[in-house]
């Protein structure tokens, strides 16, 4: 008989069996009747001789069953029925589990997509970012990006390496595309040869940029991103070979990258060749990101050794011009520290995400504790039923299995419901997550996430099922038919597990609330920091680039910008206007240079410390609300006259000259052949890289300077102070004003300063929201836990309380008794929680600002809050206890 027909004929088979056994018994009874026994005696004797009918039938059925598999089916059916019979328990337990699993799945989805999944490149594990540090290059070493590569470094590395399959450098930029309906600013990634070979993603249409495209002054060619191709050309495959005007220069399109292709961490519309002119390269120019593909079996360490070996070759091969010392960079102590591209991409987000994952995991534990408590109560109530089953011959393994199958089913059902919530949760996470979260577009539920949810569901089912199951159905479990049902008093032992769970819950909730509290304090501290600008909500910023193909002459560029400022200032409701090479927190790559002070001695040919510099227009500081600490702003007439004046930040003034006022009248310059510039103003420190980063030392040049490389700032952020900032009508007028000066100028990065400010706080506010949610969930679950246990205790002690009241105890005594018990648990939990928090909050030190991980105020406040809430949760059951009517309580049962 095949298993299939077996399965279908099963029901008939079992029916036959029962009928047959019944016939057997009948026959025996008849025989005994014939022997002269009474019917009653005969029936008893027949049954006694036959044995346990139910057990024997089961033994018979077992012959046909798949080994144990079928029993599990029975258990599942039994479990489903049991769950259906107590809908309140089922709904409460299920929703607790579902919410816990949903939160965990949602966060895991992000962790998985951002941190665990390999990058979307072929053999992505071979890809590395050519990161290097330079402890000797003061100023540069402060920031995450380390020391970027110079073009000459790229050439040496590319030609002399032994450990890499390919390598290249790239940089992001913006450019203006004209010749279409409206001028548009596009995001450009400029690449050297080797970059596309390294990423190894084939183009969707056409070909990659190739070595012939990298010839300086050669044919101008570009590639398009899929998105830009769709947006601008409607996905027309015939676009290859057509021209597109970029920065007033026609370029031929040679290919399109496929959908979903991500250029490292940069969003791009157009990829253009860097086309280095090798004859003109010098050692310096450390502005390029390096990317490489290691040889298949090469390690990171071998890669680093290879690069270290090439550094002297690089210094010998190139120069910074006649009379300079090539080996000056030895003092920078350049150290290659290549890292896997994935690590480079995810950066510090990893730590943040793991913290969030950890806290959400703790919430899950608390949820499991709650469900365990519910199950304990439930098993206790079902003791009689289980005792009957045991008496009917079910072994303890069988009962254990029944209980475990039931809790596993709860877990699985919770997982299924939770998965639905998780989908919404991921949406929510993406909405509140930092918009600069890497790999944002890759975040999706996948097989691994589903696997995680499944494992989590089963594990939590096992976790909250095992304790009650072992306690009541384990070997030597307390299954006793006689005592079940009539409970005279409550033994301490019976409450130990529940009390321990509550203590654990309170302790875990305390740790989470503490973390959330520390984040709130951090957020507060960050908000109190003076960012170096004011009234951010009413500061409109737009970025405008003037390429030299549009306006070649530097002074004309500045005059155009000046004209834009004047037109913008004429708009109704505008208080003032200015522009700068970039705004604080804008995320534009900073510019660095060596700055020499005239009255300082720089020994030998040592390189002066690198300083961040900006170009700002007259009126910019006033518009942005950046205070002048000493001296004055520059004027437009000084700018056009190329008067050698400069401003510095307060911290730079203090570092070089001691006080801000001492800086006034002193001189500095950036190149040997540049005239000395007089310091005319000292500007308050600005939190350039975000509120939590230290304000860097900054040199403020005029927009038009005596500089052979970049005499005028061509790409500038205009800032407009107006109550109307951000409104559509205002932006229309702004656009019209700019186009009235030059209709070929696109407006890019249109936002308010508040947007940039919020974005710089995004990481902190995201962490705050996540820990806040986790803390709130923990608190709620904790309250429910305490409340549930106290309520149950009171209901169990009703008789005892009734007796106490009958013997003359006052309501207050009973209230006090119950409250004391609850408070004892809460206090124990808080004490353990504080101990744990002292260890765990240290893990989030890097996310904190202006507050220590052991901040006493937070500790006291959170502990007080928890105790208060716990008291409240105990008060309701305690109050109920005082209302027990002794007569009713004693008559009951």
């Amino acid at each position, binding site marked *: *008989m095949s298993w299939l027909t077996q399965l279908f004929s099963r029901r008939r088979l079992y029916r*036959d*069996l029962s*009928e*047959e*056994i019944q*016939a*057997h018994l*009948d*026959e*025996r009874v008849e025989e005994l009747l014939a022997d002269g026994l009474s019917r009653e005696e005969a029936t008893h004797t027949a049954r006694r*001789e*036959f*044995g*346990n*009918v139910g*057990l*024997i*039938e089961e*033994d*018979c059925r*077992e*012959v*046909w069953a798949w080994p144990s598999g079928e029993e599990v089916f029975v258990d599942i059916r039994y479990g489903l029925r049991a769950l259906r019979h107590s809908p309140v328990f089922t709904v409460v337990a299920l929703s607790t589990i579902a919410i816990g699993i949903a939160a965990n799945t949602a966060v895991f989805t992000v962790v998985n997509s951002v941190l665990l999944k390999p990058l979307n490149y072929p053999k992505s594990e071979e890809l590395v970012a050519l990161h290097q540090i330079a402890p000797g290059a003061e100023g540069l070493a402060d920031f995450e990006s380390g020391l970027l590569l110079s073009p000459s470094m790229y050439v040496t590395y590319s030609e002399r390496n032994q450990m890499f399959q390919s390598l290249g450098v790239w940089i992001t930029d913006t450019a203006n595309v004209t010749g279409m309906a409206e001028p548009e600013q596009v995001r450009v990634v400029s690449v050297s040869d080797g970059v596309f070979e390294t990423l190894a993603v084939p183009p969707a249409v056409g070909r990659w940029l190739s070595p012939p495209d990298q010839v300086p002054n050669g044919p101008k060619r570009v590639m398009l991103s899929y998105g830009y191709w769709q947006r601008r050309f409607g996905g027309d495959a015939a676009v290859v070979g057509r021209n597109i005007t970029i920065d007033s220069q026609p370029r031929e399109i040679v290919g399109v990258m496929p959908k979903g292709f991500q250029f490292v961490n940069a969003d791009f519309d157009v990829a253009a060749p860097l086309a280095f002119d090798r004859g003109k390269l010098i050692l310096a120019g450390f502005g390029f990101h390096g990317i490489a593909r290691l040889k298949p079996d090469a390690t990171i360490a071998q890669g680093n050794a290879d690069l270290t070996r090439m550094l002297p070759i690089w210094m010998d091969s190139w120069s910074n011009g006649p009379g300079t010392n090539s080996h000056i960079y030895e003092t920078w102590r350049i150290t290659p520290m290549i890292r896997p591209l994935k690590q480079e991409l995810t950066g510090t987000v990893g730590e943040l995400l793991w913290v969030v994952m950890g806290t959400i995991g703790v919430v899950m534990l608390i949820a499991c504790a709650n469900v365990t408590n519910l199950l304990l109560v439930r098993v206790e109530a079902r003791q009689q039923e289980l005792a009957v089953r045991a008496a009917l011959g079910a072994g303890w393994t069988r009962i254990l299995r029944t209980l475990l199958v039931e809790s596993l089913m709860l877990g699985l059902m919770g997982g299924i419901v939770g998965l639905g919530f998780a989908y919404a949760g991921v949406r929510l996470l993406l909405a509140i997550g930092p918009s600069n979260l890497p790999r944002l577009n890759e975040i999706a539920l996948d097989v691994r996430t589903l696997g995680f949810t499944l494992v989590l569901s089963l594990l939590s089912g096992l976790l909250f099922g095992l304790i009650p199951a072992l306690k009541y159905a384990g070997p030597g479990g307390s299954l006793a038919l006689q005592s079940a049902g009539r409970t005279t008093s409550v033994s301490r032992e019976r409450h130990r597990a529940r009390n321990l769970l509550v203590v654990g819950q309170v302790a875990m909730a305390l740790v989470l609330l503490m973390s959330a509290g520390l984040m709130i304090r951090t957020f507060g501290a960050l908000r109190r920091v003076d960012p170096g600008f004011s009234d951010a909500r009413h500061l409109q910023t737009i970025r405008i680039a003037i390429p030299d193909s549009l306006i070649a002459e530097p002074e004309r560029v500045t005059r155009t910008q000046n004209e834009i400022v004047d037109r913008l200032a004429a708009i109704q409701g505008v208080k003032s206007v200015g522009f700068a090479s970039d705004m604080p927190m804008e995320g534009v790559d900073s510019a660095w240079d060596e700055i020499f002070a005239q009255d300082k001695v720089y020994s030998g040919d040592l390189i002066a410390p690198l300083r961040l510099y900006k170009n700002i227009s007259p009126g910019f500081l006033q518009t942005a609300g950046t205070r002048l600490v000493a001296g004055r702003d520059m004027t437009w007439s000084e700018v056009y006259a190329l008067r050698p004046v400069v401003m510095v930040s307060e911290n730079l003034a203090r570092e070089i000259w001691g006080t801000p006022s001492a800086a006034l009248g002193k001189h500095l310059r950036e190149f040997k052949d540049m005239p000395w510039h007089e310091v005319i103003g000292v500007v308050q420190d600005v939190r350039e890289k975000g509120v939590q980063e230290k304000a860097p030392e900054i040199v403020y040049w005029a927009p038009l300077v005596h500089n052979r490389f970049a005499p005028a700032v061509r790409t500038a952020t205009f800032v407009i102070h107006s109550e109307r900032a951000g409104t559509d009508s205002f932006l229309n007028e702004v656009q019209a004003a700019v186009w009235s000066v030059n209709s070929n100028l696109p407006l890019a990065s249109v936002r308010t300063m508040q947007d940039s400010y919020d974005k710089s706080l995004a990481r902190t506010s995201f962490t705050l929201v996540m820990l806040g949610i986790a803390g709130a969930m923990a608190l709620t679950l904790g309250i429910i836990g305490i409340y549930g246990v106290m309520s149950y205790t009171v209901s169990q002690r009703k008789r005892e309380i009734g007796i106490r009241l009958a013997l003359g105890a006052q309501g207050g005594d009973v209230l006090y008794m119950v409250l004391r018990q609850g408070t004892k648990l809460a206090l124990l939990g808080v004490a353990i929680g504080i101990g744990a928090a002292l260890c765990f909050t240290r893990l989030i030190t890097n996310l904190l600002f202006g507050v220590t991980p052991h901040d006493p105020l937070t500790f006291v406040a959170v502990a007080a809050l928890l105790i208060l809430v716990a008291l409240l949760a105990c008060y309701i059951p305690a109050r109920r206890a005082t209302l027990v009517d002794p007569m009713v309580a004693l008559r009951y049962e």
Partner: protein
Amino acid sequence: MTKSMQRDLFPGALEMMILRTLKRQPMHGYALVQQIKRTSNDLLEIEEGSLYPALQRLLKEGFVKAEWGISSTNRRVRTYKLTAPGAKHLEREVSSFERMLKGITQVLAPGEL
């Protein structure tokens, strides 16, 4: 009493006796119990209950067939019948049992001690 009896039977003994009894003539469960008791001169009193799981095992293996019918006492009963594979199985079992019994008898034979 019956418990100890059951413990003394070796695994497969009950099945062997059932098959042997059915070889003589098909019969239903109750009759089987009575028959085994009678032929063993009441030396063996098999627990009635344990008969049925054994019958199910034999059914599953295909050594016996079952059919609903009417007994001599005019009641609806399920009659079991030996099949060809069942007969072959019985032969094998009996011969291996006899070998075993011979061995045991020799070991237990007096004089060797």
